[in-house]
């Protein structure tokens, strides 16, 4: 009995965070059942992924933060290498290439980048006095931008966005000066029209235009937006109830369980459910930021903060696109969407976060 207690005291798990994550996974399973037209195999698959993810989370949480710091550079280099390989294969195959096939495993290096970039940038900046000098900003900006570009050419807009957010948020948390932020915001604003004219694929322009007027392309890119807003809107305040949102299930067969799962949620659980879901996300983000702020060293602090910000961007971009206020990019609703790739990355990230909390030094910072 004593041993048992001692074990649970020694194992690095943040119970508050874990309960929040389990809440999300449960919602994901309920929606997998509903969106999959009450098919149990989908729920079973998702359940297996959740189980595997939790195992990984607990395992990573036990890794001392100093190890992560030492591993940051090798993991980052490996990620760059894999991204180059994937881009090369994609170029040969004349098309989008995001996976590496390792026997039965299908592996997406861009997922690894979501962890490797905040690790590397945090590692680089934590060695230096903060706020960062102009040179530090340039170097860490380049460290983040390199994988972002490699992912953007795959092309995978959603993922490159998340990786960029991870790198920039670490830089921001490290104390990027407001003057620099202002400068780059100004530059971005100036560059936007140029991007629009020269830097975007035609389908990307279409998506942005469609956002402002879904009716201009009701059968193409606008179709999902129209249908998902109808589904969400028809849910009303209380929602139609679990398994009652037949409308959603009738409409988009291919994506109702994955990127557009929030439409099912909005239809079946209404605004009340959405408030609850956002509060749950808010709780996890707040708890995560608290853990980061309590970290005893700069690396853990910056890494934790970066991971939390990435998670936040997931939520906002996904719900924003499904409810029709952001362009459609392929970003899943974290821990809720059906699918395994992002589940593993997210769980690894939260494992690191728990590790940061567990391995902080015992005196108050």
């Amino acid at each position: 009995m004593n041993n048992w207690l001692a074990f649970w005291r020694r194992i690095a798990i943040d119970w508050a965070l874990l309960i929040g994550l389990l809440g999300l996974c449960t919602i994901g399973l309920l929606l997998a059942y509903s969106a999959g037209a009450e098919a149990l195999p989908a729920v079973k698959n998702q359940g297996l992924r959740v189980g595997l993810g939790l195992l990984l989370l607990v395992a990573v949480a036990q890794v001392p933060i100093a190890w992560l710091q030492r591993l940051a550079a090798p993991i980052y280099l490996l990620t760059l290498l894999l991204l180059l390989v994937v881009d090369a294969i994609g170029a040969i195959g004349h098309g989008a290439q995001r996976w590496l096939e390792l026997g039965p495993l299908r592996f997406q290096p861009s997922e690894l980048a979501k962890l490797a970039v905040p690790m590397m940038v945090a590692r680089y900046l934590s060695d230096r006095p903060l706020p960062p000098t102009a040179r530090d900003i340039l170097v860490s900006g380049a460290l983040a931008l390199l994988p972002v570009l490699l992912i953007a050419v795959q092309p995978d807009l959603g993922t490159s966005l998340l990786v960029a957010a991870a790198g920039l948020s670490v830089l921001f948390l490290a104390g990027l000066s407001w003057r620099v932020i202002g400068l780059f915001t100004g530059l971005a604003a100036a560059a936007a029209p140029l991007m629009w004219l020269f830097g975007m694929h035609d389908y990307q322009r279409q998506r942005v235009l469609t956002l402002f007027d879904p009716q201009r392309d009701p059968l193409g890119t606008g179709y999902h937006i129209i249908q998902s807003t109808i589904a969400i809107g028809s849910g009303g305040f209380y929602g139609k109830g679990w398994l009652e949102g037949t409308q959603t299930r009738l409409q988009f067969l291919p994506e109702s369980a994955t990127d557009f799962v929030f439409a099912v949620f909005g239809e079946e659980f209404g605004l009340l459910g959405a408030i609850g879901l956002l509060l749950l996300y808010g709780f996890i983000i707040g708890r995560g930021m608290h853990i980061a702020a309590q970290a005893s060293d700069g690396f853990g602090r910056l890494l934790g903060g970066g991971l939390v910000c990435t998670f936040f961007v997931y939520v906002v971009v996904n719900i924003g696109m499904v409810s029709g206020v952001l362009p459609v990019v392929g970003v899943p609703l974290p821990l809720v969407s059906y699918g395994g790739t992002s589940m593993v990355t997210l769980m690894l990230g939260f494992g690191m976060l728990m590790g940061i909390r567990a391995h902080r030094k015992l005196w108050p910072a």
Partner: protein
Amino acid sequence: MVRRQQTIKDPAAELRLFRRRAALLLVLMALAGGGLLVRLGFLQVVQHDRYATASRNNSIRAEVIAPARGVITDRNGTLLAENVSSYSLYLTPESVPDTAATLAGLGRLIDLRPADLERFASLRRTRPRFEALVLRRNLDDTEAARFAAHRHQFPGVELRGDLSRHYPLGSLTAHVVGYVGRVSEAELAQASAEQRATDSIGKTGVENFYDALLQGRVGYQQVEVDAHGRRLQVLDRTRAQPGTPLRLELDIDLQRAAQAALAQRPGAVVAIDPSSGHVLAMVSEPAFDPNLFVGGIGNADYRGLMDNPERPLTDRALRGLYPPGSTIKPLMGLAGLVSGVVTPDSHVWCPGWYTLGNSPHRYRCWQRHGHGRMELLRAVSQSCDVYFYDLALKLGIDRMHEQLGRFGLGARTGIDLPGEQAGVLPSQAWKRSARKAPWYPGETLIAGIGQGYNTATPLQLAYATALLASRGQTPTPRLVAPPLGLPPAAPGQSPQASPEQWQIIADAMHAVVSPGGTAFRALAGAPYSAAGKTGTAQVFKLSQRADDRGRTAPQHLQDHALFIAYAPLEAPRIALSVVVEHGGSGSGTAAPVARQVLDAWLARPGGT
């Protein structure tokens, strides 16, 4: 870097900075979350009525469009497998008020087999309720008309035009091309979207081996439907991508000639191009009509095929195991030369029998009165057993295993077809593990004339012959050449012999079809020069030691007749093997079959 850190880094200030920034971010995040809630509130509260109405009026569903399966042709473009349109009955569970009653009602109009109902039940468990699920395929005209007349009684049930597989040449290509059948309930869980959509999966032959290529990709369409599930209009369509057409290296005229030559006797013919490994013909007789299997074969038909004593469902070319008999003698001869245990001039006296050591047992030659003085060339052309008993003894079983193994015996060739048999090429180790018994010297003798434990498929024999023809250069047999097919794996451990040694064996096989050879009559007058070897495969073992050739066996246990050949001698363009079950002698039955096939390839007008 270290220097700067020591002098300037200020942990307390950095922590304060981080916390300020983190707090700021949390405020921004809360604002963004609030913004999302405002948007959702706008949709779900302010505009709720509008969207609720839209939701009620708007009923759009996604339908799967099945891809057309890739057609299969022979090397000249003759269709071996095509798609023809047919009627299928679909049922959409969501639109059917009472499924049990509907099924019962339909059962009175059209023939619904238990298999149909089982499959439907299984689809219903795994597929969305709004998807139209196939209930019955390949309705005949009467059934289609009968359903059309009663259509109004069955809301949610519809008749759709579909493509179904058809094999225009029927039994001629049944074994090699194979057939598609319905995805069984057991396969359903693993089936791809394409297989579910078309409800068919390659079960055997090329159809099975290249199933993934032939399937194509499903398309989807968005269909607006009214409250009764009737289609109003198609809104959006992602076209299905048809499967890749597949061109076999098979030549259908040669295939037909080979089938005709077998003249409905059970047996097999395999012909290979020795330079490329391409399979030119692959016939197994008797065969069956693959079209019977396409829509799900009926019980009576299936029983008929299963109970047929001539086993038409067995692909003899790929899975039939026969003792290779004397057809391995050329291989034995080469093994003897390569190993240096015989020379072209070394000789053995054949009195009609052979004894081993002090044993009084006589191993007989097929020529009861003996061949007299035999050297390698005449031993092959006369098929003298005594010479090869002696050669086997000199080589020993393990060296035979090693050398004959280089010709692909005892292992799968790796052809692009499922279910190939490997046969047996015995060795001491093989017998120890497979039979849990030691090797006896007498068994070496029997193995030396291709009897005993030796078994091989007609495909293996044809491949070994191709290797003889190409002097070890033939790549793995292939029905489909790259880029669609597998790359031609080079012969792994191909036989190594000097040009002179290859020439000796070629001369010996040429002597087989020359005056005085065992197959002279069958090949006489051919407008090309050929090389061959007869064989007789013992069917019935009279004793465990297999020391009697069993000539007294009843008719249905008569020996199998074998023949291998290639031609033209100088630059071989075809190598083949022929097996005629219970055909008696290789020279009398199998060699004439080979002659017809060789003629069809080499002596036809224009020639290939």
